[in-house]
């Protein structure tokens, strides 16, 4: 598959949040305002991109040569956890306000299944190093797109006369469901029709 094909696949057709339903915890937790949502999205994008490259190397230079494919999950999680720690340190240093806004969801990127998901999908799809890089970046960008859209919707929802029983998270869940429905329109045939396979 071409690089643009990979980008389109993971941003739209196989969007991690709205189609594959991975990484929903920060999607609801950090989408209250658009600034911290963007920060969260970029942090996740950084982690997925770097994790894709590093896990590719771990898979092909460590696990396969030694016949240790069964250690995939634990070694990938080890890499991801270390990367998230690094991101946390950098954000704490660079932007204390963003660090405070992200709160517990920043270390929780470690357990964000979107990150482990893309690392394992890269291996399953037999991507090479550059394709893995694109896969990781696309997964992160798809996450960012979804969470930023969601945060803008929720900011608008705060100003609307929503019924009391739906106020806050319930109406957010309903909006998320409608967004997911819309994303179902992106079909795998899109990539084939555009001759991007």
């Amino acid at each position, binding site marked *: 598959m071409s690089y643009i094909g990979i980008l389109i696949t993971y941003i739209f057709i196989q969007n991690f949040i709205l189609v594959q339903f991975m990484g929903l915890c920060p999607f609801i937790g950090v989408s209250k305002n658009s600034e911290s949502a963007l920060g969260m999205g970029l942090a996740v994008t950084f982690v997925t991109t770097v994790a894709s490259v590093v896990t590719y190397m771990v898979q092909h230079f460590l696990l396969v040569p*030694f*016949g240790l494919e069964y*250690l995939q999950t634990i070694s990938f999680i080890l890499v991801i956890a270390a990367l998230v720690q690094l991101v946390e340190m950098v954000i704490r240093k660079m932007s204390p306000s963003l660090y405070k806004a992200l709160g517990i969801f920043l270390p929780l990127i470690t357990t964000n299944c979107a990150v482990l998901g893309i690392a394992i999908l890269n291996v399953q799809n037999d991507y090479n190093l550059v394709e893995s890089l694109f896969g990781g970046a696309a997964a992160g960008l798809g996450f960012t797109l979804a969470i930023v859209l969601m945060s803008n919707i929720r900011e608008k929802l705060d100003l609307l006369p929503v019924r009391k029983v739906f106020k806050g998270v319930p109406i957010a869940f309903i909006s998320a469901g409608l967004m997911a429905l819309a994303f179902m329109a992106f079909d795998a045939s899109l990539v084939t029709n555009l001759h991007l396979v």
Partner: protein
Amino acid sequence: MGILAAFLVIAIMGLVLGFGLAFADKKFAVEKDEKLIQMEKSMPGANCGGCGFAGCSAYAEAVCKGEAEIGLCSPGGAALAQKMGEIMGVAVDATQERKVAFVHCRGNADVTVQQFIYDGIDDCNAAAIAQGGPNACKEGCLHLGSCMKVCPVGAISRDEKMMIHVDPDKCIGCGKCTTVCPTMVMKLIPASAQYVVACNNHEMGAKVKKACQVGCIGCKICQVKVPDSGCKVENFLSTIDYAADTSGLEKAAALCPQKCFEKR
């Protein structure tokens, strides 16, 4: 061979990542305000929340930023206020006395009339919803120990008669029990107080007598006969003004027909 390889691969990965993170931690270390570090060290660390902030470090941060006053910390008391003043470089009037919680009620099931048997959730606020609790006196202690559950230092105990006692040595005066108590019978008093009017009932004398044998009936004997007791009767309840002259309290306690005074 397989096990050894697996062990080595994971161990080496762990080591490399660990050292990498240790290096990054040094490189991206955030310098903390020197004042804040000192302030956090001198805090009592009970995280009781009595100051109105989320915890000791949150209060220290607010003081350093100038958003909060010095001296809100009751566990730390005057000594801490003094120290915080030194750190911030401001003069602090540290004459505040240490305060402790006290149950202003001597009632129990023997002396207070019981209107019904409460058999619900083991919580004072739940009992208070049910017609103000089983006591005929609706302003007394409910004995279910909600204050014991919120006390951050475990200073509150309950004896076999279900009476609640606060250990004045352990109490840090955070006031959590005073806010959780539905009848507000738990109040803060100066730690040095010798006598307390252990009643919280504002009803008129006849009603109090019907409800409880040890309730203050508002007879004003303590106020009128012993002027230097510091007692003042308002709304049929005697309260002691600890700032006033309280030298005659022992005499007043002896004269009290209902024996409401409790010696500490």
